[in-house]
């Protein structure tokens, strides 16, 4: 009885962990999508900045104000941001691979536990039937 209970507990715990991993994967997808959007936008800005003459007027919006910036400096800033976003994307990719590996492992574990639980249940049912027959 207690063996079956502990098995059930184990199963529940594994299931919870599995769900948590799934949530993490979803979160990872969201973050990645966000980063990719930023990447696209920054790429477009960089393209636009590259078309400018060296003495062109570039403004950066800081709060409600537009502040004048050197085109070269602006391009460098955007380039740096792109680098950062690229790094973030790589990090997220690594994390995703890790999570997927963890997920697969958890799933295998879950299947095993479920089979064990089923077996235990069957055994218990048989034992119960035998006991009923004996009495």
């Amino acid at each position, binding site marked *: 009885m207690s063996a079956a209970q502990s098995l059930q507990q184990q199963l529940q715990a594994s299931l919870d962990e599995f769900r948590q991993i799934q949530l993490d994967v979803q979160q990872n997808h969201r973050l990645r999508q966000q980063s990719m959007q930023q990447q696209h936008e920054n790429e477009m800005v960089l393209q636009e900045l590259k078309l400018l003459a060296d003495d062109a*007027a570039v403004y950066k919006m800081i709060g409600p104000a537009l502040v004048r910036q050197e085109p070269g400096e602006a391009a460098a800033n955007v380039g740096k941001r792109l680098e950062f976003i690229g790094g973030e994307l790589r990090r997220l990719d690594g994390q995703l691979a890790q999570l997927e590996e963890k997920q697969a492992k958890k799933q295998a574990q879950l299947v095993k536990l479920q089979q064990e639980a089923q077996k235990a249940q069957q055994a218990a049912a048989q034992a119960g039937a035998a006991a009923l027959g004996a009495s």
Partner: protein
Amino acid sequence: MAGEPVSLNALGPQELVQVRQQLEQELQTMTQNAVALQGTAGKFAAAGQAVEYLQEQKQGQPVLLPLTESLYVGGALESVDSVLLEVGTGYFVERDIEGGVDYCRRKVLFVKDKLEQLSQLVKQRQAMLAQVDALLDQRMGEQQAAGQQAAAGPAAAGQKK
């Protein structure tokens, strides 16, 4: 995202219904996105026209500026030969009229291009949906026929009108 190479024939009716739902959902999102893109293209086109219109005006030309949708204040055009473009992520760039018109034109083309890609995807999904629908119909027919056959044995006399 990639279309499933799994044969649809291998799926049961319930799974087919699921696939159908998923396809429908995707189609809906895509259509919404297409509408948004359409709107964006329109906005860029309008902005380009506004810049072109500005070119035809003279410096000092009196204008009414909209403060709100229904409140306007008087003003005069200070400059008719340069515009400030918002290029994204908080950056603004000052360009001459041609630069502004060109920017808007490029953006319209860019958005139209994406729209074209999207409509290809939509067509693809629609074809898949039609396929699933046809198969689902077929399955239903088979099921019904099987059910009738099973019922036809003992109650054949009662079944026929």
